[in-house]
Every structure is written in structure tokens, then in C-alpha cells.
């Protein structure tokens, strides 16, 4: 009988064993149900965000209508800049439904007026902190955190159950390579787990309506490699030929280490190694600077402002008690005063991300989560890009309104329509995802190599 025929037979018998083990069938079904819930959760959350984002232009139009009613003819642009609200919106990529990443903790839109930017950038809606603590239950969560538990449940007694049941002597007395036995057992379990992971991925992709591009393959390869890593860990533990109980403890311990402990420690370590200025400190400093603007001599404020905008230096000297251009000048200077802090904040977050990416080789779970978020455009760099685009948008609003303010041109109803608009849609961070995949493949190769070496060094004992 050829080895291939024998392998096929062994797979058939593994199916018999699997079918008979009701608990495992139930567990597999449970993971399928959990995965479907994850898909539902992710797509519902993204749909909720989309619907919310879709209402923003309507809110702006409503605001404009109110202002047009309040100022029937024309108005001072300063009044409009003060009362008019507009939005910088962060539209999700379709993939975001499968891996929500930071879209729940970071704001996906920013409400803007012509005032100082920084405080507006960090003034987000209140979210339930308990909900933030529990995190996302999306498909990526199911695949990265729960799928390994199914692999462990299916495989912790890969050969030890036969040994403990006294079956190994009879099995090993047959002309079958022990490696083929182990290989078939692993292959069957891989078939079940990968079949489930691919099925969930396909359903998730269909449900989320992702475009059929290279990212489909990248996602599937990543999920496959991640599952293979855990099967590699199973192979290593199996090769040590300990009891089922020891195997279970070793594998669950590995899961705890890689999925819970290392990520937690890494979080603390990275926060200590790359300190970031507090967003609150930045807001307070900006507010103090703005409030101090009321008490400073107007000439001093304007001269500092003109250093940044020399094109308005020749505009009329301010003699009035209050004019909008002076008001916006010290609002602007409030932002300028915290620019180094804001830059340090963004730089610090980016550095943290880079450090986590460098160290994620310590935990395939972090690597998988980082990479899937990058693939879905829901990671920190994407959020920083959105913030950067929001800053640019606010700059464009200033550039639009300042000529009205400094040339003292009335703001007419027609000028609302000419106001700049903002749109930002997440883009995947493919280089991050590819780097993650490269590291994961190396980890998989290393784990399997270790397992195979251990298997070769120690023949399978029948007792």
C-alpha cells in the first residue's frame, strides 16, 4: 500500500474519531458560531460608523441653513467661523469590519470650527470605558485569540490519548511510520481548523463586501500561517511525549504567555520606553495660551501672528476693543504654542507603534493582530494619518476664512458652498502586513523545525 493511500486512510479514521468525539464537534461548532458573531459584530459596528458618518454632511447643511437664517444677507466671516461647524470624517475601508483595530478607541470623525485646532482634535465623544475595556469581538479577535484554543482542544492529546488508552502498542506493531501517524493526525486537525478559518473568512469577506484584490490572499495566507504556528507548537509538545494533562497545561500555558502575558508586558514596557506627552497637558497648555491672549496687548499678539502669516502684515491696525481677526490670531497662536507638544505626541505614538512592531516577533498573537489591523487600515498609523489630514483640513479652512477676516470682506450665502470639504478613507498599511507575514512565516518554520528535530531525536515510545 502506498504511503499516500495509507495517509488517506489515516485521515478517514481521524474523521471517524472526530465524529465520535461529540465534545470536539460541539467545540468546533461553537467556534463557528463565535466567528459568525464576530463577523456580525464587526460589520454592524462599521455599518453604525458609516451611518453616523453619512449624517455629518446633513448636520453641516443644517448648520449652514441656521446660519443663513441668522444672517439673512451677508455676515462677518468671524461670526461664521465661530458658529459654523464642519467635520473631518475618517471613512472605513470595507476590511475594517473584519478587524476593527483602533476604530473603537480613536474617533472616526472630528467636529471642527475655525477656533484653535488642538483642543478640537482631542475633544471626542464620551465612550463607555467598560465597553472599551472589553475590546472588539470581531473576526480578527476570534481568529487570533480563540482559534488557538480550538487547536489546543483538538490536538493536546494527539498521540498521548492513544498511549494512555494502551492503543499505541497495537498501532505501532503495524507497518506504519510513526511520523505518518502523527502527520495524518495533524493534517486532519489542520483541515478542520483551516477549513473553519477559511469558511469564516470567506463569509466575513462576503458580508463586509471587500473588494476581491490581493488582500484576500494576504488575509488567507496570514490566517493559515498563524494557525500553522499553533500546530507547530502542538508538534513540539507532542514530540516531548508527555501525558495529555501535561500537554494541555503546556499548550494552554503557551497560549496564556503569547496571547495574554507578553502583550500585557509589552504594552507596559513600550509605554515606559517611549513616553508620550499627555493629551490633556497639551489641551491645558493650549487653553492657557488662548485665554492669555485676551490680556495681551493686541499689537504683540498680531506681530506674533504676522510672523507666521506675513501676507496679512499690511492689513489695518486693530484699534477696536474686539475684532474677529485678532480673536482668531490668538486662537491660532494657541495652536502654535503647543506645536512641539503635538508633534512629540504624534511622534511618540508612532515610535511606540514601531517598537511594538519590532518586538511583535515575541508573540505571534500581537504580530497577527498588528498585521491584520494594518491590512484592514485600522491601525495606529492610519489614525495618525487621519489626524494629519484633519490638521491639513483645518489649515485649509483658515486659508479660506482669513482673506475674509483680514480684508474685511463680507461672507455671503454663496461662500458657504465654496468652503473646503474633507474626506479621508483608510488605506491598508501593506508594508506592515507583509513584514508581519515574513516574521510569522519564520516563526512557523522555526517551530516546525524544532518539532521535527525533537520527533527525530526521540522515537515514539509505545508505553
Amino acid at each position, binding site marked *: 500500500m502506498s504511503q499516500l493511500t495509507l495517509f488517506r486512510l489515516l485521515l478517514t479514521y481521524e474523521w471517524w474519531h472526530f465524529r465520535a468525539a461529540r465534545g470536539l464537534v460541539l467545540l468546533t461548532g461553537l467556534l463557528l458560531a463565535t466567528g459568525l458573531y464576530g463577523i456580525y459584530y464587526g460589520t454592524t459596528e462599521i455599518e453604525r460608523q458609516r451611518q453616523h458618518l453619512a449624517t455629518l454632511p446633513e448636520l453641516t447643511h443644517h448648520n449652514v441653513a441656521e446660519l443663513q437664517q441668522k444672517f439673512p444677507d451677508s455676515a462677518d466671516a468671524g461670526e461664521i467661523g465661530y458658529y459654523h461647524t464642519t467635520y473631518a470624517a475618517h471613512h472605513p475601508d470595507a476590511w475594517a469590519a473584519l478587524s476593527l483595530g483602533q476604530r473603537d478607541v480613536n474617533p472616526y470623525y472630528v467636529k471642527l470650527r475655525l477656533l484653535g485646532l488642538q483642543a478640537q482634535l482631542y475633544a471626542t465623544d464620551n465612550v463607555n470605558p467598560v465597553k472599551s475595556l472589553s475590546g472588539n469581538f470581531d473576526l480578527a479577535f476570534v481568529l487570533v485569540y480563540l482559534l488557538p484554543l480550538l487547536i489546543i482542544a483538538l490536538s493536546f492529546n494527539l498521540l498521548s490519548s492513544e498511549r494512555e488508552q494502551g492503543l499505541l*502498542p*497495537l498501532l505501532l506493531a503495524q507497518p506504519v511510520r510513526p511520523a505518518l501517524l502523527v502527520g495524518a493526525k495533524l493534517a486532519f486537525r489542520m483541515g478542520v481548523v483551516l477549513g473553519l478559518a477559511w469558511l469564516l473568512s470567506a463569509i466575513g469577506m462576503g458580508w463586509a463586501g471587500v473588494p476581491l484584490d490581493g488582500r484576500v490572499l494576504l488575509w488567507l495566507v496570514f490566517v493559515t500561517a498563524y494557525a500553522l504556528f499553533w500546530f507547530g507548537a502542538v508538534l513540539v509538545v507532542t514530540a516531548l511525549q508527555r501525558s495529555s494533562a501535561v500537554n494541555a497545561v503546556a499548550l494552554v500555558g503557551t497560549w496564556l504567555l503569547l496571547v495574554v502575558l507578553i502583550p500585557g508586558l509589552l504594552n507596559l514596557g513600550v509605554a515606559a520606553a517611549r513616553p508620550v506627552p499627555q493629551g490633556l497637558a497639551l489641551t491645558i497648555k493650549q487653553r492657557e495660551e488662548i485665554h492669555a491672549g485676551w490680556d495681551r496687548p493686541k499689537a504683540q499678539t498680531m506681530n506674533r501672528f504676522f510672523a507666521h502669516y506675513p501676507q496679512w502684515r499690511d492689513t489695518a491696525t486693530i484699534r477696536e476693543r474686539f475684532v474677529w481677526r485678532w480673536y482668531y490670531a490668538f486662537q491660532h497662536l494657541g495652536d502654535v504654542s503647543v506645536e512641539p507638544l503635538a508633534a512629540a505626541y504624534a511622534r511618540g505614538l508612532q515610535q511606540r507603534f514601531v517598537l511594538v512592531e519590532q518586538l511583535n516577533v515575541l508573540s505571534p498573537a500581537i504580530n497577527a493582530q498588528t498585521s491584520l489591523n494594518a491590512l484592514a487600515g485600522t491601525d495606529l498609523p492610519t489614525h495618525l494619518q487621519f489626524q494629519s489630514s484633519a490638521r491639513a483640513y483645518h489649515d485649509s479652512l483658515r486659508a479660506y476664512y482669513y482673506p475674509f477676516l483680514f480684508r474685511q470682506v463680507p461672507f455671503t450665502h454663496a461662500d458657504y458652498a465654496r468652503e473646503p470639504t474633507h474626506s479621508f478613507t483608510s488605506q491598508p498599511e501593506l508594508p506592515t502586513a507583509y513584514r508581519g507575514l515574513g516574521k510569522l512565516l519564520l516563526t512557523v518554520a522555526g517551530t516546525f523545525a524544532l518539532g521535527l528535530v525533537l520527533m527525530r531525536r526521540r522515537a515514539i515510545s509505545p508505553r
Partner: protein
Amino acid sequence: MNYILEARELRKEYPGRLALRGLNLQIAPGEVFCLLGQNGAGKSTTINLFLGFVAPTSGAAFVNGVEVAAQPLKIKEYLAYIPEQVMLYPHLTGLENLSLFSSLAGFQYKEPELQAYLARAGLSTEAARRRVGTYSKGMRQKVGIAIAVAKHAKVLLLDEPTSGLDPKASNEFSELLRQLSAEGTAVLMATHDIFRAKEVGTRVGIMREGKLVDVRPTAALNAHELEQLYLTYMHD
């Protein structure tokens, strides 16, 4: 003469214990060789060495002229093994277990053939369709025998095979061994059962502290003489 089983100066040492001290043994096709001896005498170690389950410290074991240590997979094509406690997959039926182990041995039988092997081993059709988890030790032993017979092995290695079988089943087993022996199958059986050894064996070997201390043809001894011989070696 061509021997189907042969041990040449076979020695096995475990840490702190010498299990087998230079065993020399030859068994011809159709011969039923019974190894007698106390627990720890080296009977099971001898069987494990022929199965390739343990590696010899020195010397060599051969099955059908093939050295076990050199080709451990090849020799398993010639061997069938029935341990003292036949353990099977409890969630599969007797038929399914037989199908599984026969397939691994390279034989794919249809259900009537599987039923016939189980019936030959003494298992009823009704029992064959039940899950092995409901079986008694004796019933499992019968499935083990069916697995061995269905393999059409040149050699049977039996480690206390009748342990757990009722007298009727033991007699049926002895009859089966005689049939297989007549068909040319060699048998190496480790046992404590002197009378069974006398009944089915063509030769008996007495092991003590890892050495084969005496070998006699059973035809030259009656049961009483064999018992006396055994007790003599055990008490020296």
C-alpha cells in the same frame, strides 16, 4: 534451516537493570515457542525487541531474515502482535477497529470478510457491531486475535494472550493457534500458563533473570514434568 525469528546474543540493559543477557533463539515457521518465566524474567523485553519497540544494547534480532533494528518498518509486515491487554478505540465498533488496524497493515476488507475474521476469533455478529467501549476484556482480546489473523502474518508475537479469556475462549484460542501453526505461522508466546504452553507449544523456553535457562520440546514432557521443571528453575 531458515528461521522466521532469530535472536543473536541479544542483550538489553536499562539504567540500573540488565533485562536480557545475550539471548540466542531460533524459531522455525509453524513452530509455537512458549516463553515461561516469572515477571521480570525478560519475556516481554524479548517480544518488545522483536517488535522494535526497544533497541537492543547489543546483539541483533531478525524477523524473516531482516534485522529489526535496521528495518523496523519492514519487519512489521511479517509480525502480528497481541498484547496482554488488547486496547482498542472505544468509540468505534469491533468491525471498525478491525477495519482500521487491517487497513494499516495493508489489507482492506469488506464487511463480510471482517465479520468472518471476528467470528473466527469467537466474537458474535451482534457484538461486532457494538462499540468497543461496551466490551469485556475477553471480547477485546478476541478483536485483537482477529486483527492478528486478518494480517496474515508469518509470525505471531503473543504476550499473555489468554489472560482475561474464559476457559472456553482460551480453548478456542488454542485451537486457532494450532490451525495457524499448521498453516506455517510461527508463534512466540510469553505466558505464565504452563498447561496452555504444553497444550499448544512445540517448544517451551524457561527464562530467568534475562537468560533463557532451558529449552525443551513439549512432546518430550508431560504437563506434570513441565510444571516440575518450571518450579525447579523458579526456586533455585
